[in-house]
């Protein structure tokens, strides 16, 4: 029996239980139409969580994703204001997001600075840059072109484009992580960096690649976020990086690197997304959400740690008891 398999099963069970609990009092919540809405609403979290997942797989962490999202979103809105066509905007935000991720990646790769320090720093730098760019001004719905706002909401086969993008990225990640050399490298680097070096995998370069991927997704999500909510300002998605890390931790991505699956990550995001959407339905103040995601992180990490306690620790514990 594989522990990994059962962990995803437990998470799926937890999600079904959560849905059943909500449905018992509010059956309207579990209609396909509403679940589709919940999925669409969770799409940004899924996109960022997948990016964060590959970063965490390589033993790093990216706390700058939300700031990256906000900066790219603002630039998308500014470009739209300048009359630049949407395809160009899309390409630019993805490239810009990737470039911002590359800055993180280069600092981690070439200078060997711990990722938490790098991204704590770039988090404030990226968000501050929005202020430098706009002087704190807001870009509101009426300042955005109709096409710019409509794209993520355009419904194709029952789901908006935003949800389809999330589905496409999930599929892409499933292939990337499970079927490509880079995907294996992510696991190898996180699982055992020294062994990875001996098999010819560059640890730094793999971490760099993970940061670039996470950045590109944050850039894309920046446009989707701004277009969907039809507003751009300095503080959009403030603190969202915590939700993203929470989604990964709940999804069973080991913070020590090297273990985790796309399915787990997506379910972790959906778990948070369902809670967030259910709170107003059940009649709990949205102010509860922060504490709930905090508790969810703690419970998930305690659970994950129990599942894969390293044998080395146990030997040490025994030695300690003997004395």
């Amino acid at each position, binding site marked *: 029996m594989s522990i990994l398999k059962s962990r995803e099963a437990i998470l799926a069970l937890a999600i079904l239980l959560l849905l059943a609990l909500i449905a018992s009092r509010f059956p309207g919540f579990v209609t396909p139409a509403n679940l589709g809405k919940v999925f669409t609403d969770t799409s940004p979290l899924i996109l960022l969580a997948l990016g964060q997942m590959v970063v965490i797989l390589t033993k790093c962490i990216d706390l700058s994703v939300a700031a990256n999202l906000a900066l790219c979103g603002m630039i998308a809105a500014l470009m739209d204001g300048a009359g630049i066509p949407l395809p160009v905007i899309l390409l630019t935000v993805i490239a810009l997001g990737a470039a911002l991720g590359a800055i993180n990646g280069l600092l981690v790769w070439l*200078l060997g600075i711990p990722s*938490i*320090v790098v991204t704590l720093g770039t988090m404030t730098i990226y968000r501050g840059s929005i202020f430098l760019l706009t002087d704190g001004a807001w870009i509101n719905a009426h300042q955005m072109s109709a096409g710019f706002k409509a794209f993520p909401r355009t419904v194709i086969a029952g789901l908006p484009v935003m949800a389809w993008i999330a589905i496409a990225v999930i599929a892409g990640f499933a292939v990337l992580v499970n079927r490509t050399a880079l995907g294996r490298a992510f696991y190898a680097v996180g699982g055992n960096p020294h062994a990875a070096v001996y098999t010819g995998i560059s640890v730094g370069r793999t971490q760099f690649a993970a940061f670039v991927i996470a950045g590109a997704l944050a850039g894309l999500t920046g446009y989707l976020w701004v277009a969907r909510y039809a507003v751009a300002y300095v503080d959009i998605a403030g603190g969202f990086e915590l939700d993203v890390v929470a989604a990964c931790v709940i999804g069973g991505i080991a913070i020590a690197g090297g273990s985790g699956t796309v399915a787990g990550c997506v379910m972790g995001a959906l778990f948070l997304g369902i809670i967030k959407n259910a709170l107003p339905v059940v009649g709990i103040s949205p102010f*509860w959400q922060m504490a709930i995601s*905090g508790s969810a992180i703690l419970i998930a990490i*305690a659970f994950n740690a129990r599942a894969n306690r390293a044998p080395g620790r146990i030997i*040490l514990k025994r*030695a300690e008891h003997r004395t």
Partner: protein
Amino acid sequence: MTEHLGRQIPDRLTSPLTRALKSWEALLLVVAVLIFIANSLASPYFLDPWNLSDASFNFTEKAMIAFAVALLIISGEIDLSVGSIIALSSTVMGLAMTAGAGTPVLVLLGLATGLACGAFNGLLVARFGLPSIVVTIGTMSLFRGISYIVLGDGAFTGYPASFGWFGQGYVFWVITVELVIFGFAAIIFGVLLHRTNFGRMVYAIGNNAVAARFSGIRVERVKFTLFLLTGLMSGIAAICLTSRLGSTRPSIAAGFELEVVTIVVLGGVSILGGSGSIIGVVLAAILMGLVTFGLGLMNVPGIVMSIIVGLLLIAVIALPRLWSMARR
């Protein structure tokens, strides 16, 4: 990655004086003095004792926490929940205040909440062996989340006048109460880290936790104590900050964790653990205070200052590494 074999061993050690002059702390001192001079040239209002006393609020609260976090980082752990501990402590004090509690009770509750939060972090990290970075990201959400549940978009105001002493009072002339607390905390933590067994244990754990355990150090207990200390210092900072602002909002002390970690790292504490000094943290705190005060005098908005803090954090770690790469 940067391990190099055949490291050269010098024939003799450099004299203590040369080492002191070449140290990170000396560099910080020089930079602080330069910024002090630059500020006094840039603005005629800088050299006013009352202004400088006001400016000390820029760093005193953060520095109190930074001392404890420095020990934590030296031991190889981190605490990102300090800002949220302040929020929760402040909220508990606010609740007690609305229930009619007096200043002594408020102070006790503030300290107790800080200790409780620290104990919670410590329990999860030391007792259950969970990674401190995720634990404290979790409790960062949880503690502040509880404040949001209690306060929503409201605020507690109307603290008793005597409570204002901690954040607004003066011991004599321009020396504020907070500055005195900062000074005492610096001395206590300096002695604790550099002159006691406990301090040696902290270094030992940060350099090699496994070896430390085999040499008889109760690693878990030391780490738990460090989280407790961080909680306590956050509680003290919460009392000072709440007293100074005279109100509690759930967003109080947001982003403190970044500035605290920046002060610690700027102070020469290795983020990987095992090395650092309290005097470095003191100098880094004063330096940060001078920078933000100077920028404030030049009407630089807060968010731009945070960019500079972020750049400082990265530059401080990147420059020495670039330097050693260039020399090799």
